[in-house]
């Protein structure tokens, strides 16, 4: 992990815990992500990957601990920091009864996107959905909806992308398109934190990998230091689950 020039991390979590009833979903997660870095989260089902992303994205509040985005506490600057985040979840956050355009228009109002029409055209073009812009979301395939969900997340040009298995339902061409659109746009490189169950994909796209197990980060390393066989062995040792 490269130390940023200033001591401000794009994302920093300090002893973050999350409790559901008597189940501890996150157990003191400490994470530091530099600006422009791409981090992949691995882990078996129930490891806490989705919960961590939900806590980072403000969908959930942590039970304890602090989250800093660009050095600002998420608790105190939620609205300002939400403008810097783009979120792609298991669900698309899209309204089935509205058209693709109407959905994006609605979210552009929520994010105060300037020149919204122009921006909608740009993001829809990025994800290859221009021809379906005026179709109702409910009639689109799962893959198309996922593309649109990515367009929604990119609308306000976020500097931080939080992606929970973003490739769900996408074909190979759409996957390539997705990563092109996500990793950079304009001048700056985005900070990306994503989860995936495909080890190869994580190795290819992440610069650093984290393995979570039972709510804790149990392994952390640079992806360039790993090949697939090594990762499989590390994953098995860290989680006790073979892949």
């Amino acid at each position: 992990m490269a130390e940023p020039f200033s001591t401000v991390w794009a994302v920093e979590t300090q002893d973050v815990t999350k409790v559901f009833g008597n189940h501890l979903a996150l157990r003191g997660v400490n994470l530091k992500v530099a600006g422009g870095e791409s981090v992949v989260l691995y882990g078996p089902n129930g490891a806490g990957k989705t919960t961590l992303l939900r806590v980072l994205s403000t969908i959930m509040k942590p039970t304890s601990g602090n989250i800093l985005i660009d050095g600002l506490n998420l608790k105190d600057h939620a609205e300002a920091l939400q403008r810097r985040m783009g979120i792609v979840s298991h669900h698309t956050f899209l309204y089935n009864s509205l058209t693709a355009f109407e959905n994006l228009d609605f979210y552009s109002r929520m994010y105060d996107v300037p020149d919204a029409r122009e921006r909608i055209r740009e993001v829809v073009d990025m994800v290859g959905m221009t021809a379906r812009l005026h179709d109702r979301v409910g009639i689109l395939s799962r893959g198309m909806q996922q593309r649109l969900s990515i367009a929604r997340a990119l609308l306000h040009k976020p500097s931080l992308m939080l992606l929970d298995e973003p490739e769900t339902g996408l074909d190979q061409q759409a996957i390539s398109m997705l990563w092109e659109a996500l990793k950079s746009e304009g001048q700056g490189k985005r900070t990306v934190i994503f989860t995936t169950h495909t080890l190869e994909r994580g190795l290819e796209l992440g610069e650093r990998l984290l393995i979570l197990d039972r709510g804790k980060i149990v392994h952390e390393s640079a992806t360039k230091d790993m090949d697939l066989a090594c990762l499989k062995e590390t994953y098995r040792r860290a989680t006790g689950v073979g892949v």
Partner: protein
Amino acid sequence: MSFWRKALAITRKDALSELRTKEIISSVLVFALLVILTFNFAFGANQETMKLVAPGILWVTFTFSGVLSLNRSFISEVEQDCLEGLKVCPVGREAIYVGKALGSLLFMLIIEAIALPVFALFFNLQVLSPQLVLITFLATVGFVSVGILFSALSVNTRAREMVLPILFLPIVVPVVISAVKASELALSGATWSALSSGILIILAFDAIFLVASFFTFSFVIEE
């Protein structure tokens, strides 16, 4: 300004969605008309009886239609986890409350605007007086302002259709009772001054419900 722009964007989105699906207005309107029709048959053509029971029938119709309408209000937000999509937007929870409440108010007022003339026709009563229109509007504001809070509360429960009326109706009873009393006076041709205390009571409940719901909504939609 941003608060209102975002709240109105939510209302606009709900209105657009309703224009497409006609899920709320069409089904609730049919229900409301059926209730009016059923009561009309139940009480026969006796004009004296009609006058006596009309305010009650009117508010039974609006109350249960309103519950049906409120039940649907957050359904679209649950599909595809859109409520979470709203929560990650840089928009205050209070703006979400206002946007959703304005949408529901709009739908209920449309339903009432259609149901009232039908009610007048079936019951042969002068219900389209400015007094009754004002009472209906004010009571609906109170009804929706607290109803939207309970709709958000119940939407993630398994038996939401049951949970909403069970939680909501005992709370909204003061508004409904005040509305029935004021409507009774309005239907008997009472003057504005005679109605003023009834209207003030409804206004007071509106204010209490609006303020309380506005400030508690953010707690209700957290996890």
